[in-house]
């Protein structure tokens, strides 16, 4: 039932709660006797772009891993389109992108882009995999670098291949853990802008972990601020700036206001403890 409602809705107006693709309820994670995440409630509407931001050690990466089914919550529950994260991942609903592109150095860009799809669906022929990889490389703007090996690509290009690899699965949600964290400022801006365009073209739901205030506001529709000790969501901020956005949005007075507001929230999130 639930799945049908989600499929039917299609568009992406914000704040429609029954249209959540991801919903986490009361998620806590204890690792090595430390409370890493405490009582996280998070809902990600279908087709939305949500950022998680917070100081180092706030558990934002762990939260992303919980959503991806890579870490089991100690208590609480996560559902992705009505399924558990592990089930959703097996059904290729989750695309993952990490800070390191993690490309296989012995494969060229197109084979890297289709590598995970090949593992997930063994019935696909080599030719079909190649075609899909090529299609995804074109989507991320690397159509003419298909035969290059990772060492011939720049850091930004490698990360584009990693995004293509995640998209090749045709996932419902893209979970990204500081995907542009290792890139220089200019490349980072360009990658953010590309990601926005990919998002608008594909209509994927995106959850982005970042520690860049500008990136969070430039890209997302909702920003959740996480605090430390224990990791918990302290504030949530809706970014009302209209899409499509480009880099000129950073000069918008509303953008500047949101940066100040988010910075204040982040500063508060550095204080340990404190109920929210």
């Amino acid at each position, binding site marked *: 039932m639930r799945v049908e409602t989600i499929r039917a809705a299609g568009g992406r107006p914000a704040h429609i709660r029954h249209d959540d693709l991801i919903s986490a309820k009361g998620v806590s994670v204890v690792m090595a006797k430390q409370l890493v995440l405490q009582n996280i409630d998070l809902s990600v509407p279908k087709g939305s772009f949500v950022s998680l931001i917070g100081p180092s050690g706030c558990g934002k990466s762990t939260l992303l891993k919980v959503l*991806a089914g890579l870490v089991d919550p100690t208590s609480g529950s996560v559902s992705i389109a009505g399924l558990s994260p592990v089930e959703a*991942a097996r059904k290729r609903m*989750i695309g*993952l992108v*990490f800070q390191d592109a993690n490309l*296989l150095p012995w494969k060229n860009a197109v084979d890297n882009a289709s590598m995970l799809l090949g*593992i997930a669906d063994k019935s696909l022929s080599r030719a079909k995999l190649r075609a899909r990889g090529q299609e995804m490389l074109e989507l991320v703007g690397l159509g003419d670098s298909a*035969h290059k090996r990772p060492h*011939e690509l720049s850091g930004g290009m490698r990360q584009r291949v990693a995004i293509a690899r995640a998209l090749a699965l045709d996932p419902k949600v893209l979970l990204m853990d500081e995907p542009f964290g290792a890139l220089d400022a200019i490349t980072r801006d360009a990658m953010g802008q590309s990601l926005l365009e990919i998002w608008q073209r594909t209509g994927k739901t995106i959850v982005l972990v970042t520690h860049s205030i500008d990136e969070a506001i430039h890209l997302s529709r909702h920003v959740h601020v996480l605090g430390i000790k224990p990791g918990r969501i302290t504030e949530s901020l809706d970014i009302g700036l209209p899409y499509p956005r480009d880099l000129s949005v950073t000069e918008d007075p509303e953008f500047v206001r949101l940066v100040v507001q988010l910075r204040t929230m982040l500063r508060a999130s550095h204080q340990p403890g404190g109920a929210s």
Partner: protein
Amino acid sequence: MSDQPTTNFSESRPESRPSSSWGAATGSWLPAVILLLATIVVWEAVVRIFAISAFIIPAPSEIAQSLVAQWGTLMQATLVTAGEILFGFLVSVAVGIAIALVIVRFDWLGRALYPLVVLFQNVPKVALAPIFILWFGYGLAPKIGLILVIAFFPVTLSMLAGMQSVDRSLLSLMNSVGASRTQILFRIRVPHSLPNLMAGTKIAATLSVIGAIVGEFAGASDGLGYVIQFASTQLDTALVFAALLLVSVLGIAFYYAAEILERIVVPWAPKFSQS
């Protein structure tokens, strides 16, 4: 793999400047060659000036003479030793790889096997030579056995290190789409380990030479090790040196063969030749 290498591909490679790299290569070889020649000249001079007896230290010219005079015997012995080295090396690499794969693929077996492999590494392998002769006779088998026990370890160890150094987030990616352990092993871990494995293989190539010579010392009727032992009982030190020279040439040949293999197997591996 890729059936249509584009021109773009080769142009963008930074190391495609043959003339200057050749110049750099001769530049780096030259000091070594000069030192070698100088050593030979000084050696020759010292032996002649102090009239040192040829069975204590033969002059380079005497070694050369012996090399020419005994050329037929020496070549025959070289061929035998080279065969032992090659065969033993291949067996060592195969066994080394197999042990590493078993350790990584099967947890329980790996936990049983790994400490034993490390323990065995502490046995002085050279001391096993007489036992191998006792078990396998004077033929090829004891030499292969000895090379195996000496040379498999660096292969196993380097491959294990390579297979276990796969980035965790790459494993997360694989796990998230439900990849099996076998898939992760053969699609990720094994190819990832190849640069390490090739480094271990180069060490194994050098150790194989040692293994063959030690095996021949312990008991043989042919091969360079046998020639060295026989010549030293005859006080034909020049012949000993001539055989030693050929052993060194064999060692270098096997090392570079392994290095060429490395370039072919792992073209993406970092190269240390350029500083």
